[in-house]
């Protein structure tokens, strides 16, 4: 029941995103000072709690969004073989974005 499990994850990540995005916004907007100033941005990046939240958000958002995108593309009558290629491509893209996105705060951390 592979597709079913993937879809369950889509649901779970959807619900998760609801809370994560909420927390993300609250944390960002309510932190002291101008939320997008360099100080607050790099300050947040240095906190482990924020980083954890960020990584979760990233995983959930990317999985949810990319699985959604996969569904939509699949619906253009994609036959089995190209569909496999599509799966792998999206997986690689997802991982790449994830790697890049995590690298930023960690880089700043270092």
């Amino acid at each position: 029941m592979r597709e079913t499990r993937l879809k369950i994850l889509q649901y779970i990540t959807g619900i998760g995103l609801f809370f994560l995005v909420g927390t993300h916004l609250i944390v960002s907007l309510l932190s002291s000072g101008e939320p997008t100033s360099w100080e607050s941005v790099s300050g947040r990046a240095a906190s482990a709690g924020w980083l954890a939240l960020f990584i979760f958000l990233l995983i959930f958002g990317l999985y949810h969004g990319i699985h959604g995108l996969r569904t939509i593309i699949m619906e253009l009558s994609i036959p089995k073989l190209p569909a496999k290629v599509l799966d792998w491509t999206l997986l690689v893209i997802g991982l790449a974005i994830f790697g890049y996105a995590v690298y930023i705060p960690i880089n700043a951390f270092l």
Partner: protein
Amino acid sequence: MQELTFKVQRYLPGKDKKAYIQQFTVPLRQGMTVLDGLIYIKENVDNTLSFRSSCRMGICGSCGMFINNFPMLACHTPVEELGTDRIEVRSLPNFPVIRDLVADLDLLFEKHKSIKPYIISPDTEEAEEPTAEFLQSGEELEGYVQFAYCVKCGLCMAACPTVATDALFPGPQSLGQAYRYCTDRRDAGVEERFHQADSRHGVWLCHLAGACSEACPKGVDPALAIQLLKRAMVFDSLRLKKKKKPASIAQPLAESKPKIDVPEFTVKQP
């Protein structure tokens, strides 16, 4: 409203590159259906118009068409119901056009077959040589009978936006039937059908557009069946599912009433 304007899609393979619309005038008769209008055109105005029809009572599923931009059965649609005297009739979307209003539904039949729409019996001996009827409660019957109303007309397939883009999506008709057989306690083929519906182009490509149920002329509500199928599959995948109890065979009744009299044989029996 004395006369109706029929705008009818025409297409003759080999001759026409594209379908076009032809206009006809049809006298209004009280109580007439769209099918009556088409028959009038065929018999009195243009003998070459082609469309399917058989039962003319909304039960055979032949006459699915796109009438004023909605999939409907032509025989099941009194023109009064449309509330206008301009009636545009086109072939069902999402199915290739064979000619004029005749759509090629092979796709529907293939997909229906692919989900194993038959009782897969748990007990082969009883299946081969049935001994007695099964017992079935009213509640069990209600659980699936609505979905067994399906006349396989394909209107839901014409309505569904996923079918509109995905040639490989089984579509509301067959997924609804998959659920219909899965909930029947006489059946033991749940696993096989779940497996079938779990593919990339399977049940999860239904996003509850609901157009299938809206279009269905027989009250089947395939959207409901599909969502219930999803639920069953999610529960199954999370191992939360209740085991389906197989149906039980009826035991002979106790003699409760005397036999009704039959006249004696008047021919000598060998």
